[in-house]
């Protein structure tokens, strides 16, 4: 195989070391129209998230909304130009619906739904460019958008992905590393509370290797959390500067 995931000197194809993340850049409050919004780039994976709510449930969901909790509705859409090949069906395809269902499940673990009975919260994700770790970056984008919208959450939800090559765990994999066919583990954690709320494994993995790769994912999540938290604090400081001027 000419494609080497990890060179002998310990470098990956894009020049990173095994435990290094890609560059993370994010912005909160990118839309005025949505209650909360965020844009995040992790390397070349660029995702936009918008949160609407909590609001009165729309016609389609009126029957499903519980009386003591809120309904979380997630929509996941991939732009036609986001992947290697042009995607003709941005939403409503199998992968998109599955991703949306997983993200909805993930956020039900953190959003305090009992504080918003009979309401609906919409999380809309748009993938502008997809270069691996789509689930992880989507979750991070949605977390930032929810914080921007002022929706009560127990903690941030930070997700990361990892793979295994030559016995070394590679953190934050990109599209090429994904398509090689090694096992890929994605996990979402609550960083301050130290809990894992979602894991997903694609590919085959020996059970002895599970511990190692899980540790690598958790370390990756803490690193991403560190970056995103800095950014959110700065955003809060800027916005709150004029807040209590009386």
């Amino acid at each position: 195989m000419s494609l080497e995931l990890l060179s002998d000197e310990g470098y990956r194809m894009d020049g990173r070391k095994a435990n290094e993340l890609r560059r993370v850049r994010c912005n909160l409050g990118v839309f005025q129209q949505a209650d909360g919004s965020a844009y995040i780039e992790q390397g070349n994976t660029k995702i936009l998230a918008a949160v609407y709510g909590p609001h009165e449930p729309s016609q389609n969901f009126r029957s499903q909304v519980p009386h003591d909790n809120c309904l979380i509705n997630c929509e996941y859409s991939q732009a036609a130009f986001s992947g290697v090949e042009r995607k003709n069906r941005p939403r409503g395809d199998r992968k998109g619906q599955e991703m949306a269902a997983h993200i909805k499940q993930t956020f039900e673990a953190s959003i305090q739904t009992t504080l918003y009975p009979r309401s609906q919260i919409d999380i809309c994700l748009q993938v502008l460019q997809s270069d691996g770790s789509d689930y992880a970056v989507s979750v991070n984008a949605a977390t930032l958008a929810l914080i921007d919208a002022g929706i009560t959450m127990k903690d941030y939800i930070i997700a990361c992905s990892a793979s295994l090559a030559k016995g070394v765990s590679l953190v934050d994999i990109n599209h090429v590393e994904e398509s090689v066919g090694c096992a890929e583990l994605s996990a979402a954690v609550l960083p301050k509370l130290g809990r894992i709320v979602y894991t997903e494994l694609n590919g085959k993995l020996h059970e002895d290797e599970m511990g190692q790769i899980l540790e690598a994912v958790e370390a990756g999540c803490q690193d991403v959390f560190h970056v995103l938290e800095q950014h959110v604090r700065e955003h809060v400081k800027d916005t709150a500067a004029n807040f209590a001027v009386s």
Partner: protein
Amino acid sequence: MSSNKTIEMKLPSKRQKNAVQNVSNRMLVTPGDVITEDTIYMKGHGTYGTNIEGDKRVIASVAGVVEPINKLICVKPLKTRYNGEVGDVIVGRIKDVQQKRWKVETNSRLDSVLHLSSVNLRGGELRRRSAADEFAMREYLKEGDLISAEIQQVHADGSLSLHTRSLRYGKLGQGCCVVVSPSLIKRRKNHMHNLSCGVSIILGNNGYVWISPLVKTATDSEAGDGGFDFDKEPVTADDRETICRVRNAILCLAKHSVMLYDTSVQYAYDKSLDYEAKHLLSDDVASEIVDRTLMEIDLLKGNA
């Protein structure tokens, strides 16, 4: 056919950071931050506690400013949907006409309700509502109308009941509505003001601000007649410009997260007289006006 209009373009640039003011004495938190471990404090809005035995931490659940009120710790989020309280003045839009009530959209978690029995009907206030009244509801208020009302009741699930049973409230006529975040409206005793620049303004607690020409009634500061007829006299061009300028000034203040109340809006209007009303929408002019307004407010505080 050549036209010599100029087009303004802005290249992407780093966002301007606001001047940091008054931040040192307030605690800013993000979800998951531990605010305190002292057991004497009670948990208010925006906080929660793990229900583990022996864990007395108060943890923030939103990103915002910590507001301690005696022993109660609340966190006020930067942006939020409107949380109503009894007695608040709001401006809302009729969304639906149902049997014996109207559904009003008020930028809150759930739609608010305006019962037929909570409005003033033509021909006297104390009339019993008949079936004919129910059929004629759409003649009074239909979908898309704006009303000013007061919150009568907050139900257990958070939905609001409104009433317009005062001459000050009712359907809103000619004017302009501006939507800002509810967190920017300061809670005060009076929300309906007649500004000295010649407009009357209703600062709805839910973030909807209504600007209209001065109400020409014998009594002072009444924005509506509690009924459903409004002044159909054409608004003069000067009034329209003033209304437009006030609207743009409010948007400038909202963009920089400055609290809105009659004094701040009045100052922003005064400072904006140097520019044309339409130029207030550009970012540099907006920052300058906000800076000067904040300086003026500081002066006022310094003198007080």
